[in-house]
Protein backbone atom coordinates (compact mmCIF):
# COMPACT_ATOMS: atom_id res chain seq x y z
CA UNK A 1 0.00 0.00 0.00
CA UNK A 2 2.79 2.34 0.90
CA UNK A 3 4.58 1.45 -2.27
CA UNK A 4 1.48 2.13 -4.30
CA UNK A 5 1.02 5.42 -2.54
CA UNK A 6 4.56 6.44 -3.28
CA UNK A 7 4.13 5.37 -6.88
CA UNK A 8 0.92 7.34 -7.25
CA UNK A 9 2.39 10.42 -5.65
CA UNK A 10 5.31 10.19 -7.99
CA UNK A 11 2.85 10.09 -10.85
CA UNK A 12 0.41 12.78 -9.69
CA UNK A 13 1.84 14.89 -6.88
CA UNK A 14 -1.53 16.46 -5.97
CA UNK A 15 -2.65 13.17 -4.42
CA UNK A 16 -0.59 13.93 -1.35
CA UNK A 17 -3.03 16.66 -0.47
CA UNK A 18 -6.14 14.48 -0.61
CA UNK A 19 -8.02 13.39 2.53
CA UNK A 20 -6.68 10.30 4.22
CA UNK A 21 -9.67 8.03 3.44
CA UNK A 22 -9.39 8.81 -0.25
CA UNK A 23 -5.68 8.05 -0.24
CA UNK A 24 -6.27 4.74 1.49
CA UNK A 25 -9.10 3.83 -0.82
CA UNK A 26 -7.14 4.73 -3.90
CA UNK A 27 -3.81 3.21 -3.00
CA UNK A 28 -5.38 -0.02 -1.74
CA UNK A 29 -8.23 -0.27 -4.17
CA UNK A 30 -6.27 0.34 -7.32
CA UNK A 31 -3.85 -2.59 -6.98
CA UNK A 32 -6.68 -4.77 -5.74
CA UNK A 33 -8.70 -3.93 -8.82
CA UNK A 34 -5.80 -4.55 -11.17
CA UNK A 35 -4.78 -7.80 -9.52
CA UNK A 36 -8.29 -9.10 -9.28
CA UNK A 37 -8.96 -8.58 -12.92
CA UNK A 38 -5.62 -10.04 -13.84
CA UNK A 39 -6.28 -13.11 -11.76
CA UNK A 40 -9.88 -13.52 -12.79
CA UNK A 41 -9.06 -13.40 -16.47
CA UNK A 42 -5.84 -15.41 -16.61
CA UNK A 43 -7.60 -18.72 -15.86
CA UNK A 44 -9.20 -18.30 -19.25
CA UNK A 45 -5.75 -18.50 -20.74
CA UNK A 46 -4.76 -21.35 -18.46
CA UNK A 47 -7.75 -23.44 -19.37
CA UNK A 48 -7.12 -22.91 -23.04
CA UNK A 49 -3.46 -23.74 -22.53
CA UNK A 50 -4.22 -26.83 -20.53
CA UNK A 51 -6.64 -28.13 -23.11
CA UNK A 52 -4.20 -27.53 -25.90
CA UNK A 53 -1.30 -29.11 -24.04
CA UNK A 54 -3.43 -32.12 -23.20
CA UNK A 55 -4.52 -32.40 -26.79
CA UNK A 56 -1.01 -32.21 -28.20
CA UNK A 57 0.30 -34.76 -25.76
CA UNK A 58 -2.47 -37.08 -26.81
CA UNK A 59 -2.00 -36.50 -30.54
CA UNK A 60 -5.20 -34.54 -30.78
CA UNK A 61 -6.02 -31.05 -31.92
CA UNK A 62 -7.90 -29.69 -28.95
CA UNK A 63 -10.40 -26.86 -29.26
CA UNK A 64 -10.35 -25.58 -32.82
CA UNK A 65 -13.81 -24.21 -33.48
CA UNK A 66 -14.36 -20.94 -31.67
CA UNK A 67 -12.01 -18.37 -33.05
CA UNK A 68 -8.74 -19.12 -34.83
CA UNK A 69 -7.26 -22.28 -33.29
CA UNK A 70 -10.04 -22.17 -30.74
CA UNK A 71 -8.60 -19.29 -28.75
CA UNK A 72 -12.04 -18.00 -27.85
CA UNK A 73 -13.23 -21.39 -26.65
CA UNK A 74 -12.71 -20.73 -22.96
CA UNK A 75 -14.41 -17.37 -23.23
CA UNK A 76 -17.39 -19.07 -24.77
CA UNK A 77 -17.28 -21.66 -21.99
CA UNK A 78 -17.08 -19.00 -19.34
CA UNK A 79 -20.07 -17.19 -20.79
CA UNK A 80 -21.97 -20.43 -20.91
CA UNK A 81 -21.15 -21.18 -17.29
CA UNK A 82 -22.17 -17.73 -16.17
CA UNK A 83 -25.52 -17.96 -17.90
CA UNK A 84 -26.31 -21.45 -16.77
CA UNK A 85 -28.73 -21.94 -13.97
CA UNK A 86 -27.08 -22.70 -10.66
CA UNK A 87 -28.93 -25.75 -9.47
CA UNK A 88 -29.53 -26.27 -5.79
CA UNK A 89 -30.38 -29.93 -5.26
CA UNK A 90 -32.94 -30.79 -2.68
CA UNK A 91 -31.41 -31.18 0.77
CA UNK A 92 -28.41 -28.91 0.36
CA UNK A 93 -27.54 -26.46 3.05
CA UNK A 94 -28.06 -23.37 0.96
CA UNK A 95 -26.03 -20.93 3.03
CA UNK A 96 -22.98 -23.14 3.17
CA UNK A 97 -23.50 -24.21 -0.41
CA UNK A 98 -23.24 -20.62 -1.61
CA UNK A 99 -20.51 -19.58 0.82
CA UNK A 100 -18.15 -22.45 0.07
CA UNK A 101 -16.99 -21.44 -3.43
CA UNK A 102 -16.57 -17.86 -2.27
CA UNK A 103 -14.41 -18.98 0.63
CA UNK A 104 -12.30 -21.12 -1.65
CA UNK A 105 -11.73 -18.08 -3.81
CA UNK A 106 -10.81 -15.93 -0.83
CA UNK A 107 -8.08 -18.43 -0.01
CA UNK A 108 -6.91 -18.39 -3.59
CA UNK A 109 -6.86 -14.62 -4.10
CA UNK A 110 -5.58 -13.19 -0.82
CA UNK A 111 -1.97 -14.43 -1.21
CA UNK A 112 -1.57 -11.96 -4.06
CA UNK A 113 -1.26 -9.23 -1.49
CA UNK A 114 2.34 -10.18 -0.79
CA UNK A 115 3.60 -11.43 -4.12
CA UNK A 116 6.31 -9.08 -5.35
CA UNK A 117 6.18 -8.17 -9.01
CA UNK A 118 9.07 -5.77 -8.75
CA UNK A 119 11.17 -3.91 -6.23
CA UNK A 120 8.30 -1.51 -5.58
CA UNK A 121 5.56 -3.34 -7.41
CA UNK A 122 4.05 -5.16 -4.47
CA UNK A 123 0.68 -4.45 -2.87
CA UNK A 124 2.04 -4.91 0.64
CA UNK A 125 5.42 -6.06 1.85
CA UNK A 126 4.45 -7.93 5.00
CA UNK A 127 7.32 -9.00 7.16
CA UNK A 128 5.62 -12.39 7.65
CA UNK A 129 5.08 -12.84 3.92
CA UNK A 130 5.63 -16.55 3.40
CA UNK A 131 3.86 -17.42 6.60
CA UNK A 132 0.92 -15.29 5.51
CA UNK A 133 0.71 -17.10 2.17
CA UNK A 134 0.61 -20.53 3.80
CA UNK A 135 -1.90 -19.47 6.40
CA UNK A 136 -4.25 -17.72 4.03
CA UNK A 137 -4.23 -20.38 1.33
CA UNK A 138 -5.28 -22.93 3.94
CA UNK A 139 -8.60 -21.10 4.18
CA UNK A 140 -9.69 -22.69 0.93
CA UNK A 141 -9.66 -26.08 2.66
CA UNK A 142 -12.46 -24.85 4.85
CA UNK A 143 -14.33 -23.93 1.71
CA UNK A 144 -13.81 -27.38 0.25
CA UNK A 145 -15.09 -29.08 3.39
CA UNK A 146 -18.08 -26.76 3.46
CA UNK A 147 -18.80 -27.56 -0.16
CA UNK A 148 -18.61 -31.28 0.46
CA UNK A 149 -20.78 -31.15 3.52
CA UNK A 150 -23.37 -28.76 2.17
CA UNK A 151 -23.87 -30.75 -1.02
CA UNK A 152 -25.66 -33.54 0.84
CA UNK A 153 -23.93 -36.00 -1.44
CA UNK A 154 -21.81 -38.93 -0.41
CA UNK A 155 -19.26 -38.49 -3.14
CA UNK A 156 -18.89 -34.82 -2.26
CA UNK A 157 -18.41 -35.76 1.38
CA UNK A 158 -15.70 -38.23 0.44
CA UNK A 159 -14.00 -35.58 -1.61
CA UNK A 160 -14.16 -33.06 1.20
CA UNK A 161 -12.75 -35.47 3.74
CA UNK A 162 -9.97 -36.46 1.43
CA UNK A 163 -9.04 -32.87 0.66
CA UNK A 164 -9.01 -31.96 4.34
CA UNK A 165 -6.68 -34.82 5.19
CA UNK A 166 -4.51 -34.07 2.19
CA UNK A 167 -4.02 -30.37 2.71
CA UNK A 168 -3.45 -30.66 6.43
CA UNK A 169 -0.77 -33.28 5.83
CA UNK A 170 0.99 -31.46 3.07
CA UNK A 171 1.15 -28.16 4.94
CA UNK A 172 3.79 -29.68 7.18
CA UNK A 173 6.44 -30.72 4.66
CA UNK A 174 5.83 -27.63 2.56
CA UNK A 175 6.32 -25.35 5.57
CA UNK A 176 9.45 -27.20 6.58
CA UNK A 177 10.88 -26.75 3.13
CA UNK A 178 9.97 -23.08 3.14
CA UNK A 179 12.17 -22.93 6.19
CA UNK A 180 15.19 -23.83 4.09
CA UNK A 181 15.45 -20.61 2.04
CA UNK A 182 14.12 -18.65 4.99
CA UNK A 183 17.02 -19.91 7.06
CA UNK A 184 19.51 -18.84 4.46
CA UNK A 185 18.05 -15.35 4.22
CA UNK A 186 16.89 -14.87 7.75
CA UNK A 187 13.66 -13.17 6.81
CA UNK A 188 10.10 -14.17 6.03
CA UNK A 189 9.42 -11.25 3.73
CA UNK A 190 9.09 -12.23 0.12
CA UNK A 191 10.86 -9.07 -0.94
CA UNK A 192 13.88 -9.94 1.16
CA UNK A 193 13.84 -13.51 -0.09
CA UNK A 194 13.91 -12.26 -3.67
CA UNK A 195 16.62 -9.71 -3.16
CA UNK A 196 18.86 -12.27 -1.47
CA UNK A 197 19.09 -14.01 -4.84
CA UNK A 198 20.19 -10.89 -6.69
CA UNK A 199 23.01 -11.20 -9.18
CA UNK A 200 21.83 -13.57 -11.88
CA UNK A 201 21.11 -17.18 -12.49
CA UNK A 202 23.90 -18.58 -10.35
CA UNK A 203 22.60 -16.82 -7.25
CA UNK A 204 19.16 -18.39 -7.38
CA UNK A 205 18.45 -20.62 -4.44
CA UNK A 206 17.70 -23.50 -6.77
CA UNK A 207 21.40 -23.69 -7.64
CA UNK A 208 22.83 -23.08 -4.21
CA UNK A 209 24.21 -25.86 -2.02
CA UNK A 210 23.79 -28.11 -4.98
CA UNK A 211 22.42 -31.44 -3.85
CA UNK A 212 20.26 -29.82 -1.22
CA UNK A 213 18.32 -27.04 -2.82
CA UNK A 214 17.22 -28.90 -5.97
CA UNK A 215 15.88 -31.67 -3.76
CA UNK A 216 14.12 -29.09 -1.66
CA UNK A 217 12.66 -27.59 -4.82
CA UNK A 218 11.35 -30.95 -6.04
CA UNK A 219 9.87 -31.74 -2.65
CA UNK A 220 8.21 -28.35 -2.47
CA UNK A 221 6.86 -28.85 -5.95
CA UNK A 222 5.30 -32.16 -4.95
CA UNK A 223 3.80 -30.63 -1.86
CA UNK A 224 2.48 -27.75 -3.93
CA UNK A 225 0.84 -30.15 -6.35
CA UNK A 226 -0.89 -31.82 -3.46
CA UNK A 227 -1.99 -28.55 -1.93
CA UNK A 228 -3.56 -27.39 -5.14
CA UNK A 229 -5.28 -30.77 -5.72
CA UNK A 230 -3.59 -31.29 -9.04
CA UNK A 231 -2.77 -34.64 -10.57
CA UNK A 232 -1.25 -36.98 -9.50
CA UNK A 233 -2.75 -35.86 -6.19
CA UNK A 234 -6.19 -34.85 -7.40
CA UNK A 235 -7.93 -37.40 -5.22
CA UNK A 236 -10.52 -34.96 -3.80
CA UNK A 237 -12.04 -34.64 -7.24
CA UNK A 238 -10.92 -37.96 -8.70
CA UNK A 239 -13.39 -38.24 -11.52
CA UNK A 240 -13.08 -41.95 -12.03
CA UNK A 241 -13.76 -42.65 -8.36
CA UNK A 242 -15.79 -39.82 -6.92
CA UNK A 243 -17.45 -38.53 -10.09
CA UNK A 244 -16.33 -34.96 -9.41
CA UNK A 245 -15.53 -35.02 -5.71
CA UNK A 246 -16.49 -32.01 -3.67
CA UNK A 247 -18.04 -30.10 -6.57
CA UNK A 248 -20.25 -32.93 -7.79
CA UNK A 249 -23.42 -30.98 -7.09
CA UNK A 250 -22.26 -27.59 -8.28
CA UNK A 251 -23.27 -26.12 -11.57
CA UNK A 252 -23.16 -22.89 -13.47
CA UNK A 253 -21.58 -19.92 -11.82
CA UNK A 254 -20.63 -21.63 -8.58
CA UNK A 255 -18.91 -24.40 -10.43
CA UNK A 256 -16.94 -21.85 -12.42
CA UNK A 257 -15.83 -20.30 -9.13
CA UNK A 258 -14.23 -23.59 -8.11
CA UNK A 259 -12.56 -23.72 -11.44
CA UNK A 260 -11.28 -20.19 -11.06
CA UNK A 261 -9.94 -20.96 -7.61
CA UNK A 262 -8.10 -24.05 -8.75
CA UNK A 263 -6.24 -22.26 -11.51
CA UNK A 264 -5.57 -19.23 -9.37
CA UNK A 265 -4.09 -21.43 -6.67
CA UNK A 266 -1.88 -23.02 -9.25
CA UNK A 267 -0.54 -19.63 -10.15
CA UNK A 268 -0.09 -18.64 -6.51
CA UNK A 269 1.97 -21.65 -5.54
CA UNK A 270 4.01 -21.30 -8.71
CA UNK A 271 4.70 -17.66 -7.93
CA UNK A 272 5.70 -18.51 -4.37
CA UNK A 273 7.95 -21.26 -5.68
CA UNK A 274 9.53 -18.81 -8.10
CA UNK A 275 10.20 -16.38 -5.28
CA UNK A 276 11.64 -19.01 -2.98
CA UNK A 277 13.82 -20.85 -5.46
CA UNK A 278 13.95 -19.12 -8.81
CA UNK A 279 14.73 -15.55 -7.88
CA UNK A 280 11.24 -14.10 -8.10
CA UNK A 281 11.15 -11.08 -10.33
CA UNK A 282 14.90 -11.11 -10.92
CA UNK A 283 16.13 -11.79 -14.41
CA UNK A 284 18.43 -14.73 -15.11
CA UNK A 285 21.00 -12.24 -16.32
CA UNK A 286 21.18 -8.87 -14.56
CA UNK A 287 21.28 -7.13 -17.93
CA UNK A 288 17.78 -8.29 -18.70
CA UNK A 289 16.31 -6.78 -15.55
CA UNK A 290 15.46 -3.58 -17.35
CA UNK A 291 15.04 -3.15 -21.06
CA UNK A 292 15.34 0.53 -21.83
CA UNK A 293 12.90 2.44 -19.66
CA UNK A 294 10.76 -0.66 -19.09
CA UNK A 295 11.32 -2.64 -15.87
CA UNK A 296 11.00 -6.33 -16.70
CA UNK A 297 10.51 -7.71 -13.17
CA UNK A 298 6.83 -8.45 -13.64
CA UNK A 299 7.63 -10.32 -16.83
CA UNK A 300 10.19 -12.56 -15.20
CA UNK A 301 7.96 -13.54 -12.29
CA UNK A 302 5.12 -14.13 -14.70
CA UNK A 303 7.34 -16.18 -16.99
CA UNK A 304 8.74 -18.32 -14.18
CA UNK A 305 5.36 -18.93 -12.65
CA UNK A 306 3.88 -19.91 -15.98
CA UNK A 307 6.72 -22.27 -16.70
CA UNK A 308 6.00 -24.01 -13.42
CA UNK A 309 2.31 -24.08 -14.24
CA UNK A 310 3.20 -25.69 -17.53
CA UNK A 311 5.15 -28.39 -15.71
CA UNK A 312 2.12 -28.97 -13.52
CA UNK A 313 -0.04 -29.45 -16.58
CA UNK A 314 2.58 -31.66 -18.16
CA UNK A 315 2.58 -33.85 -15.07
CA UNK A 316 -1.18 -33.99 -15.00
CA UNK A 317 -1.37 -35.43 -18.48
CA UNK A 318 1.40 -37.90 -17.80
CA UNK A 319 0.76 -39.45 -14.45
CA UNK A 320 -1.91 -41.65 -12.96
CA UNK A 321 -3.56 -40.73 -9.71
CA UNK A 322 -2.29 -42.02 -6.39
CA UNK A 323 -4.44 -43.43 -3.65
CA UNK A 324 -5.35 -41.82 -0.35
CA UNK A 325 -3.09 -43.94 1.81
CA UNK A 326 -0.22 -43.58 -0.62
CA UNK A 327 -0.74 -39.85 -0.56
CA UNK A 328 -0.37 -39.91 3.19
CA UNK A 329 2.65 -42.17 2.81
CA UNK A 330 4.31 -39.68 0.52
CA UNK A 331 3.57 -36.83 2.88
CA UNK A 332 4.60 -38.40 6.16
CA UNK A 333 7.18 -40.98 5.19
CA UNK A 334 8.86 -39.45 2.18
CA UNK A 335 8.56 -35.70 2.16
CA UNK A 336 8.66 -35.10 5.89
CA UNK A 337 11.91 -37.02 6.55
CA UNK A 338 13.54 -35.45 3.53
CA UNK A 339 12.43 -32.01 4.62
CA UNK A 340 13.75 -32.55 8.14
CA UNK A 341 17.09 -33.71 6.82
CA UNK A 342 17.28 -30.75 4.49
CA UNK A 343 16.48 -28.30 7.26
CA UNK A 344 19.22 -29.79 9.42
CA UNK A 345 21.71 -29.82 6.54
CA UNK A 346 21.06 -26.27 5.45
CA UNK A 347 21.06 -25.08 9.01
CA UNK A 348 24.38 -26.80 9.45
CA UNK A 349 25.82 -25.30 6.29
CA UNK A 350 24.65 -21.84 7.20
CA UNK A 351 26.12 -22.06 10.67
CA UNK A 352 29.20 -24.16 9.80
CA UNK A 353 32.13 -21.80 10.27
CA UNK A 354 33.76 -22.85 7.02
CA UNK A 355 30.84 -22.00 4.75
CA UNK A 356 29.68 -19.18 6.95
CA UNK A 357 33.10 -17.62 6.51
CA UNK A 358 32.85 -17.85 2.75
CA UNK A 359 34.01 -21.26 1.67
CA UNK A 360 32.77 -21.30 -1.91
CA UNK A 361 30.77 -24.52 -1.62
CA UNK A 362 28.97 -23.77 -4.81
CA UNK A 363 32.12 -23.22 -6.81
CA UNK A 364 33.83 -26.45 -5.82
CA UNK A 365 30.90 -28.78 -5.16
CA UNK A 366 27.71 -27.29 -6.46
CA UNK A 367 28.55 -26.04 -9.91
CA UNK A 368 30.37 -29.08 -11.27
CA UNK A 369 27.47 -31.27 -10.23
CA UNK A 370 24.95 -28.81 -11.62
CA UNK A 371 26.75 -28.67 -14.95
CA UNK A 372 26.82 -32.45 -15.15
CA UNK A 373 23.08 -32.60 -14.52
CA UNK A 374 22.31 -29.90 -17.06
CA UNK A 375 24.47 -31.66 -19.63
CA UNK A 376 22.66 -34.91 -19.04
CA UNK A 377 19.29 -33.23 -19.43
CA UNK A 378 20.42 -31.55 -22.64
CA UNK A 379 21.49 -34.85 -24.14
CA UNK A 380 18.18 -36.42 -23.24
CA UNK A 381 16.31 -33.51 -24.75
CA UNK A 382 18.26 -33.53 -27.99
CA UNK A 383 17.73 -37.24 -28.39
CA UNK A 384 14.04 -36.78 -27.80
CA UNK A 385 13.91 -34.06 -30.43
CA UNK A 386 15.71 -36.19 -32.99
CA UNK A 387 13.35 -39.06 -32.23
CA UNK A 388 10.45 -36.68 -32.74
CA UNK A 389 11.55 -35.72 -36.18
CA UNK A 390 11.81 -39.34 -37.22
CA UNK A 391 8.42 -40.11 -35.81
CA UNK A 392 6.81 -37.13 -37.46
CA UNK A 393 8.19 -38.39 -40.76
CA UNK A 394 6.76 -41.81 -40.14
CA UNK A 395 3.37 -40.40 -39.39
CA UNK A 396 3.38 -38.20 -42.45
CA UNK A 397 4.27 -41.00 -44.86
CA UNK A 398 3.17 -44.16 -43.17
CA UNK A 399 4.88 -46.42 -45.66
CA UNK A 400 2.07 -46.80 -48.11
CA UNK A 401 -1.56 -47.40 -47.37
CA UNK A 402 -1.66 -48.00 -43.66
CA UNK A 403 -5.33 -47.38 -43.36
CA UNK A 404 -8.41 -48.15 -45.31
CA UNK A 405 -9.23 -44.54 -45.84
CA UNK A 406 -6.10 -43.82 -47.76
CA UNK A 407 -6.78 -46.70 -50.07
CA UNK A 408 -10.24 -45.44 -50.71
CA UNK A 409 -8.77 -42.17 -51.81
Amino acid at each position, binding site marked *: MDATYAFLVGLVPEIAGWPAWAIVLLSAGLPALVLFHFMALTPLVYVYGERKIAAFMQDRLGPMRVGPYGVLQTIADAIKLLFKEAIFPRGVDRKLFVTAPLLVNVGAFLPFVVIPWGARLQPADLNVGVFYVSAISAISTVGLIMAGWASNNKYALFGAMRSAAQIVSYEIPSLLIILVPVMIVGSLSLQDLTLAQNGGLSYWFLFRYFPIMPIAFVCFFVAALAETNRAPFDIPEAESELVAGFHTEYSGFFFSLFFLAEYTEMFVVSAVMSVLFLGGYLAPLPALQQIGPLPMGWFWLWFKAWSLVFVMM*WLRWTLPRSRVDQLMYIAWKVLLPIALVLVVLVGGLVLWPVTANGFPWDRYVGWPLTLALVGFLLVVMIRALRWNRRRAGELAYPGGASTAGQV*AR
Partner: protein
Amino acid sequence: MTQWLKDVWFGFFTVLVGMRITWRHLFTRSVTLQYPSVKWPLPPKSRMRLFMNYEDCIGCGQCVRACPVACISLKTEKRPADAPPIWAASGQAIKLDVSVFDIDMSLCCYCNLCTYPCPTFCLYMTPDYEFATGNLTEHLYRFAKKDAQFLMEDPKKRAAPAEAPPVAPQNPPASPAGA
Protein backbone atom coordinates in the same frame (compact mmCIF):
# COMPACT_ATOMS: atom_id res chain seq x y z
CA MET B 1 16.06 -48.00 4.18
CA THR B 2 17.50 -49.30 0.91
CA GLN B 3 14.02 -50.24 -0.17
CA TRP B 4 12.81 -46.80 0.77
CA LEU B 5 15.55 -45.10 -1.21
CA LYS B 6 14.87 -47.39 -4.13
CA ASP B 7 11.16 -46.62 -4.03
CA VAL B 8 11.74 -42.90 -3.94
CA TRP B 9 14.29 -43.02 -6.72
CA PHE B 10 12.19 -45.23 -8.97
CA GLY B 11 9.15 -43.13 -8.30
CA PHE B 12 11.04 -40.04 -9.36
CA PHE B 13 12.76 -41.71 -12.29
CA THR B 14 9.69 -43.33 -13.84
CA VAL B 15 7.90 -40.01 -13.60
CA LEU B 16 10.70 -38.49 -15.64
CA VAL B 17 10.51 -41.32 -18.18
CA GLY B 18 6.79 -40.73 -18.59
CA MET B 19 7.32 -37.01 -18.89
CA ARG B 20 9.83 -37.59 -21.64
CA ILE B 21 7.27 -39.52 -23.66
CA THR B 22 4.57 -36.92 -23.29
CA TRP B 23 7.12 -34.27 -24.17
CA ARG B 24 7.85 -36.09 -27.40
CA HIS B 25 4.20 -36.28 -28.23
CA LEU B 26 3.82 -32.58 -27.71
CA PHE B 27 5.46 -32.15 -31.10
CA THR B 28 4.06 -35.02 -33.09
CA ARG B 29 1.33 -34.52 -35.57
CA SER B 30 -2.20 -34.92 -34.40
CA VAL B 31 -4.05 -37.89 -35.80
CA THR B 32 -7.55 -36.53 -35.51
CA LEU B 33 -9.59 -34.76 -38.12
CA GLN B 34 -11.85 -31.74 -37.90
CA TYR B 35 -14.85 -33.85 -38.64
CA PRO B 36 -17.57 -31.90 -40.40
CA SER B 37 -15.11 -29.80 -42.40
CA VAL B 38 -12.62 -32.59 -43.11
CA LYS B 39 -14.03 -36.00 -43.77
CA TRP B 40 -12.43 -39.38 -43.85
CA PRO B 41 -13.40 -41.03 -47.11
CA LEU B 42 -15.06 -44.32 -46.41
CA PRO B 43 -14.13 -47.50 -48.23
CA PRO B 44 -16.68 -48.55 -50.85
CA LYS B 45 -17.71 -51.58 -48.82
CA SER B 46 -18.87 -49.48 -45.91
CA ARG B 47 -22.22 -50.55 -44.62
CA MET B 48 -24.03 -47.38 -43.75
CA ARG B 49 -27.39 -46.81 -45.35
CA LEU B 50 -29.48 -49.29 -47.24
CA PHE B 51 -30.54 -48.28 -50.69
CA MET B 52 -32.91 -50.09 -52.94
CA ASN B 53 -33.23 -49.74 -56.66
CA TYR B 54 -36.96 -49.95 -57.09
CA GLU B 55 -36.91 -50.56 -60.83
CA ASP B 56 -34.95 -53.78 -60.38
CA CYS B 57 -36.93 -55.38 -57.57
CA ILE B 58 -38.84 -58.50 -58.51
CA GLY B 59 -40.60 -58.72 -55.16
CA CYS B 60 -39.27 -62.13 -54.17
CA GLY B 61 -39.14 -61.24 -50.47
CA GLN B 62 -35.88 -62.99 -49.69
CA CYS B 63 -34.48 -59.89 -48.02
CA VAL B 64 -37.49 -59.76 -45.73
CA ARG B 65 -36.88 -63.33 -44.63
CA ALA B 66 -33.18 -62.74 -44.13
CA CYS B 67 -33.54 -59.64 -41.98
CA PRO B 68 -33.03 -60.58 -38.31
CA VAL B 69 -34.71 -57.45 -36.98
CA ALA B 70 -37.64 -57.32 -39.41
CA CYS B 71 -37.00 -53.80 -40.59
CA ILE B 72 -38.06 -54.41 -44.21
CA SER B 73 -41.71 -54.59 -45.06
CA LEU B 74 -42.84 -55.66 -48.47
CA LYS B 75 -46.26 -55.93 -50.10
CA THR B 76 -46.69 -57.35 -53.55
CA GLU B 77 -49.58 -58.17 -55.79
CA LYS B 78 -49.69 -60.17 -58.94
CA ARG B 79 -49.07 -58.14 -62.03
CA PRO B 80 -52.20 -58.07 -64.21
CA ALA B 81 -52.01 -60.31 -67.25
CA ASP B 82 -52.67 -57.50 -69.69
CA ALA B 83 -49.90 -55.23 -68.34
CA PRO B 84 -46.83 -54.82 -70.56
CA PRO B 85 -43.99 -57.17 -69.55
CA ILE B 86 -41.08 -55.57 -67.67
CA TRP B 87 -37.64 -56.75 -66.69
CA ALA B 88 -35.04 -56.09 -64.04
CA ALA B 89 -31.61 -54.95 -65.17
CA SER B 90 -30.17 -58.38 -64.46
CA GLY B 91 -32.60 -60.04 -66.82
CA GLN B 92 -35.29 -61.46 -64.56
CA ALA B 93 -38.81 -60.77 -65.64
CA ILE B 94 -40.78 -58.86 -63.03
CA LYS B 95 -43.96 -60.76 -62.35
CA LEU B 96 -45.07 -58.96 -59.22
CA ASP B 97 -46.01 -55.37 -58.61
CA VAL B 98 -44.27 -54.12 -55.50
CA SER B 99 -46.71 -51.74 -53.92
CA VAL B 100 -44.86 -51.25 -50.62
CA PHE B 101 -41.16 -51.54 -49.97
CA ASP B 102 -40.33 -49.83 -46.71
CA ILE B 103 -37.09 -49.97 -44.81
CA ASP B 104 -37.07 -48.63 -41.30
CA MET B 105 -33.47 -47.53 -40.87
CA SER B 106 -34.06 -46.81 -37.20
CA LEU B 107 -34.52 -50.55 -36.73
CA CYS B 108 -31.82 -51.65 -39.14
CA CYS B 109 -28.83 -53.32 -37.53
CA TYR B 110 -26.51 -52.90 -40.51
CA CYS B 111 -25.73 -56.59 -40.69
CA ASN B 112 -25.81 -56.74 -44.48
CA LEU B 113 -27.66 -60.07 -44.45
CA CYS B 114 -30.46 -58.79 -46.68
CA THR B 115 -28.24 -57.85 -49.59
CA TYR B 116 -26.79 -61.30 -50.22
CA PRO B 117 -29.92 -63.24 -51.16
CA CYS B 118 -31.17 -60.52 -53.48
CA PRO B 119 -31.26 -62.14 -56.95
CA THR B 120 -31.18 -58.87 -58.87
CA PHE B 121 -28.64 -57.00 -56.68
CA CYS B 122 -31.12 -54.20 -56.28
CA LEU B 123 -30.67 -53.85 -52.50
CA TYR B 124 -27.32 -52.72 -51.23
CA MET B 125 -25.51 -50.78 -48.54
CA THR B 126 -24.16 -47.34 -49.41
CA PRO B 127 -21.29 -45.53 -47.68
CA ASP B 128 -23.48 -42.55 -46.90
CA TYR B 129 -23.51 -42.14 -43.15
CA GLU B 130 -24.85 -38.73 -42.24
CA PHE B 131 -28.54 -39.27 -41.83
CA ALA B 132 -29.30 -38.16 -38.32
CA THR B 133 -32.62 -36.43 -37.99
CA GLY B 134 -34.64 -34.98 -35.20
CA ASN B 135 -37.63 -37.07 -36.07
CA LEU B 136 -37.64 -40.84 -35.89
CA THR B 137 -40.24 -41.21 -38.62
CA GLU B 138 -37.84 -39.74 -41.15
CA HIS B 139 -35.87 -42.95 -40.95
CA LEU B 140 -38.67 -44.81 -42.59
CA TYR B 141 -37.66 -44.95 -46.22
CA ARG B 142 -40.47 -45.76 -48.63
CA PHE B 143 -38.80 -46.98 -51.78
CA ALA B 144 -41.91 -47.83 -53.80
CA LYS B 145 -42.41 -45.29 -56.54
CA LYS B 146 -45.45 -44.43 -58.56
CA ASP B 147 -43.67 -43.26 -61.70
CA ALA B 148 -40.89 -45.81 -61.95
CA GLN B 149 -39.22 -46.22 -65.32
CA PHE B 150 -39.07 -49.98 -65.82
CA LEU B 151 -37.14 -51.71 -68.55
CA MET B 152 -39.71 -52.52 -71.19
CA GLU B 153 -37.55 -55.03 -73.06
CA ASP B 154 -35.52 -57.98 -71.95
CA PRO B 155 -31.94 -56.81 -71.36
CA LYS B 156 -30.68 -60.29 -72.28
CA LYS B 157 -31.86 -59.81 -75.82
CA ARG B 158 -29.79 -56.68 -76.21
CA ALA B 159 -26.14 -56.55 -77.20
CA ALA B 160 -23.77 -58.86 -75.42
CA PRO B 161 -21.82 -56.25 -73.35
CA ALA B 162 -24.96 -55.27 -71.51
CA GLU B 163 -25.37 -58.79 -70.28
CA ALA B 164 -23.05 -58.52 -67.31
CA PRO B 165 -25.17 -57.34 -64.41
CA PRO B 166 -23.82 -54.66 -62.10
CA VAL B 167 -22.51 -56.83 -59.30
CA ALA B 168 -21.77 -54.24 -56.67
CA PRO B 169 -22.70 -50.77 -57.82
CA GLN B 170 -20.00 -48.28 -56.94
CA ASN B 171 -21.04 -45.03 -55.36
CA PRO B 172 -24.70 -45.11 -56.23
CA PRO B 173 -26.91 -42.11 -55.73
CA ALA B 174 -27.23 -41.93 -52.01
CA SER B 175 -30.40 -39.95 -51.68
CA PRO B 176 -33.25 -41.91 -50.18
CA ALA B 177 -36.31 -42.11 -52.28
CA GLY B 178 -38.89 -41.67 -49.62
CA ALA B 179 -38.90 -40.32 -46.08
